[in-house]
């Protein structure tokens, strides 16, 4: 095993591929958080009064809250006054209307990341709402979508152009009082994506957005709101990579999904933010609140996530199964390597009758990584015939990593059927031997086995993401064999 594990060590210790920093003039405000900063952010974004009031309510509530301590993660205390709460690329003021107007340096960055916007427009048929340091800079395919009545734009644009929709749905799934990080986000969020699918419309393409964290010391507070009206369908992709940086950065995003009668929302994420170096220095703190609300009958929300980046991930995409016959799904692959920590899982709250939920969670720990699944399945009294199936599998590579499971199951209705299963395993030496004996190198074998382990989740991803996800795992996870 000696030589092969050396090889593997090399692969594990591979530097972060997407580590580069684009020199851009940023339109930033001074460090720190106060009511003035909240007002300033709102003013800079030229927001209507209801938004400002909402932000202020959130900020005042935030002051009364303290940071949650229950997660199975450890980090140095975060100084919320030592952060910049707003930063937008300078060129944004003119508001580029097409790709040609976009800062060429920015475009080059995307090319390095492997998302050539222009090519995408033609080849992949994906509309990209690229978020670069908190302000949306390029939106494609807007016209095409508008024909069908679909609104897909940056959040600030939505606030200006569709205030009635924003007012109606903002905070209706994740209220500003929800939790410490969601409340902080409500007070200071800078931008994000807004998506509205009208009644009976099936969105003709996969909608996608790229989040990037660029300016130094800027917490990124994104807010995404997706509303699917009756009978609508949308598949939304979110992908992230971030440049290499030494200081920890806080990312506290909020995602709200609303599905009305017979609507279906599929939300996929590939998260590959900077995880810190091999000694655990630096990296992103990813504290995200994601929640979907199956408001209507027969509505369907599915979360798929591949989490390979971030120093700390703290994320529980949840579904409120309010409508009768609604369905919630959660498919997750979370990988922790080096000193990464992940505390992730889901919440399925069954409120309506005949609701169903499925949870498939795959955790992979290598190096000194700590990976925890924390989930809640709750069946309320009126939720007749609720059904849940949960499976959490962990794969351990190396004897210094950890895999933890904290499933909470609460049933208040006797017709509920709930199953939970969890297993822990590692890559067997016999499996490796089998592959190597057939001429497959150790790292390829590991990659194959791990991809097999994650197959159930990958098959839920849209094509473009599935390829990216497999590549990502290939880079960040091979190794630590036996």
């Amino acid at each position, binding site marked *: 095993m000696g030589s092969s594990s050396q090889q593997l060590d090399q692969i594990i210790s591979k530097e972060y591929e997407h580590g580069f920093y684009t020199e851009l003039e940023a339109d930033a405000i001074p460090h720190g958080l106060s009511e003035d900063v909240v007002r300033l952010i709102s003013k800079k974004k030229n927001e209507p009064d209801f938004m400002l009031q909402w932000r202020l309510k959130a900020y005042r509530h935030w002051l009364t809250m303290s940071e949650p301590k229950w997660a199975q993660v450890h980090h140095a205390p975060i100084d919320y006054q030592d952060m910049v709460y707003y930063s937008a690329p300078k060129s944004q003021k003119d508001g580029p209307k097409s790709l040609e107007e976009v800062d060429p340096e920015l475009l080059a960055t995307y090319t390095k990341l492997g998302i050539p916007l222009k090519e995408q427009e033609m080849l992949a048929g994906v509309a990209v709402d690229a978020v670069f340091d908190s302000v949306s800079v390029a939106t494609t395919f807007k016209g095409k979508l508008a024909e069908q009545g679909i609104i897909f734009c940056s959040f600030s644009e939505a606030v200006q152009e569709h205030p009635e929709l924003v007012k109606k749905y903002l905070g209706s799934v994740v209220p500003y009082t929800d939790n410490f990080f969601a409340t902080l986000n409500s007070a200071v969020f800078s931008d994000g994506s807004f998506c509205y699918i009208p009644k009976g419309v099936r969105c003709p393409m996969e909608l996608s957005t790229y989040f990037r964290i660029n300016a130094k010391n800027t917490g990124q507070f994104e807010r995404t709101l997706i509303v699917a009206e009756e009978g609508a369908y949308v598949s939304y992709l979110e992908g992230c990579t971030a440049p290499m940086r030494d200081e920890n950065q806080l990312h506290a995003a909020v995602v709200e999904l609303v599905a009305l009668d017979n609507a279906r929302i599929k939300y996929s994420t590939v998260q590959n933010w900077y995880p810190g170096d091999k000694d655990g220095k630096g990296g992103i703190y990813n504290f995200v609140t994601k929640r979907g609300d199956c408001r209507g009958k027969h509505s369907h929300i599915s979360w798929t996530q591949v989490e390979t980046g971030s120093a700390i991930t703290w994320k529980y995409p949840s579904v409120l199964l309010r409508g009768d016959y609604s369905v919630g799904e959660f498919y997750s692959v979370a990988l922790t390597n080096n000193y990464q920590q992940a505390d992730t899982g889901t919440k399925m709250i069954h409120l309506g009758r005949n609701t169903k939920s499925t949870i498939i969670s795959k955790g992979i720990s290598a190096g000194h990584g700590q990976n925890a699944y924390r989930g809640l399945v709750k069946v309320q009294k009126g939720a007749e015939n609720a059904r849940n199936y949960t499976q959490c599998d962990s794969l351990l590579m190396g*004897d210094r990593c950890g895999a*933890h499971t904290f499933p909470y199951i609460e049933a208040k*209705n006797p017709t*509920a059927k709930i199953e939970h299963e*969890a*297993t822990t395993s590692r890559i067997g030496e016999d499996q490796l031997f089998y592959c190597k004996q057939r001429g497959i190198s150790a790292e390829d074998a590991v990659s194959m086995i791990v991809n097999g382990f994650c197959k159930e989740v990958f098959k839920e991803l849209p094509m473009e993401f599935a390829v990216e996800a497999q590549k990502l795992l290939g880079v960040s996870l091979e190794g630590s064999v036996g």
Partner: protein
Amino acid sequence: MIGAQVRDRYLSDFKRVEATLPGRAVSWMQNTRRQAFEKFAASGFPTTRDEDWKYTSVAFLGEQEFVPSVAKVCEITQAQISTWAFAGSANHLLVFVDGYYAPGLSKIGAIEKQVLLTSTADLLVKQPELLAPLLQRNIDSAFAALNTAFMTDGMCLYLPAGSIVEDAIHVLYIATSPSKIYHHRNIIVAEDNTQATVIEHYVGINDAVYFNNAITSVDVGNNATIEHYKLQQEGVNAFHIANISAIQNRDSRFNSHSLAFGSRLARNDISTRFQDSGGECEMNGLYVVGGCQHIDHHTCIDHAKPRCTSREYYRGVLSGASRAVFNGKVIVQQDAQKTDAQQANHNLLLSKDAEIDTKPELQIYADDVKCAHGATIGQLDDDMMFYLRSRGISNDMAHGLLTYAFAHDIVDRIKFEPLRLRIEQILMAQLPQGEKIKELL
């Protein structure tokens, strides 16, 4: 947190009874009690804001005034004892009434003479030095601290190396009077190559409101085997909080069975720690509750050393407006390679007002391990019901039969036959048409 009023009440109780408690002549014991009380006064009772007590509220302790039991209240007759005793099989019977040893009702049969089987209070008088290290540990939680401060009596079993107690030791704890708080303290020390079976049996003789707070500590030496059963049949209005914690040495075996039927509210903390390699542990549990009962099991298996095996099987049947909580924690420490840990918790919800909260929890810090857990919540299978109904078995009876079969998986794991038969009886009595089911089997 603890309200000043509640604390003052416990403090005045402590001052009043301190001089009557066993071990009053032993200075370290006095200190231990005082320290423990300080600890309790500082921490107070847990609230539902504490993660470990999220689903179980002990608010009743603030509302209800319990006074420490200082003496036996009711006389218990030999005839009463015989209804609980295991006829002809268990040769050792220790009876505690209202927290105090009742030698007249107890009967210790032939036993290897170096084996010590006695009451904790007795030993505190005769050989206190034996107990010093055992009573001074395990006082971290509020209830353990409270127990240490007020503890009156309990069973004490000391097995010197190589000794075996063939017959099961049946320990009966009888509560007779209302508004009392009982603090039992049981100690089992099994040195290398020893073997014994202990049955802790808690009963209430009426529907009095009382509070039983018991602690059992078990030290299992190298290659020793301890079979531990806990049969809980407290009165319907009783509160029962018990803590069983074991420490396992090399190649030792500790099997725990928790069979919970009685009480208004019960909480069991059962834990074991493998502090050397090669140990084995099996934890079985069965809770059958109805009415407004609340039963909570928190188990913890700490794999601190390599090559240990643990198995955990818990099943629950809930009817009426009852509520059950299960929290099974398995920790595999960094160097505990080759650990094999399996855990399963299955629950049958039979009524619309019953509630189950289960949380099987794994914390794994080693890679070469086999760990799995499973939890299910469901009802009786429709197909099975149909099968039985189509063969002319009444609805009630089919119901009872399937419930019985569900629970029997745990009953089957009881090795001590008289106890197994007793549990079957208890189950039959609780099921619809139990008598008829008996005929069928």
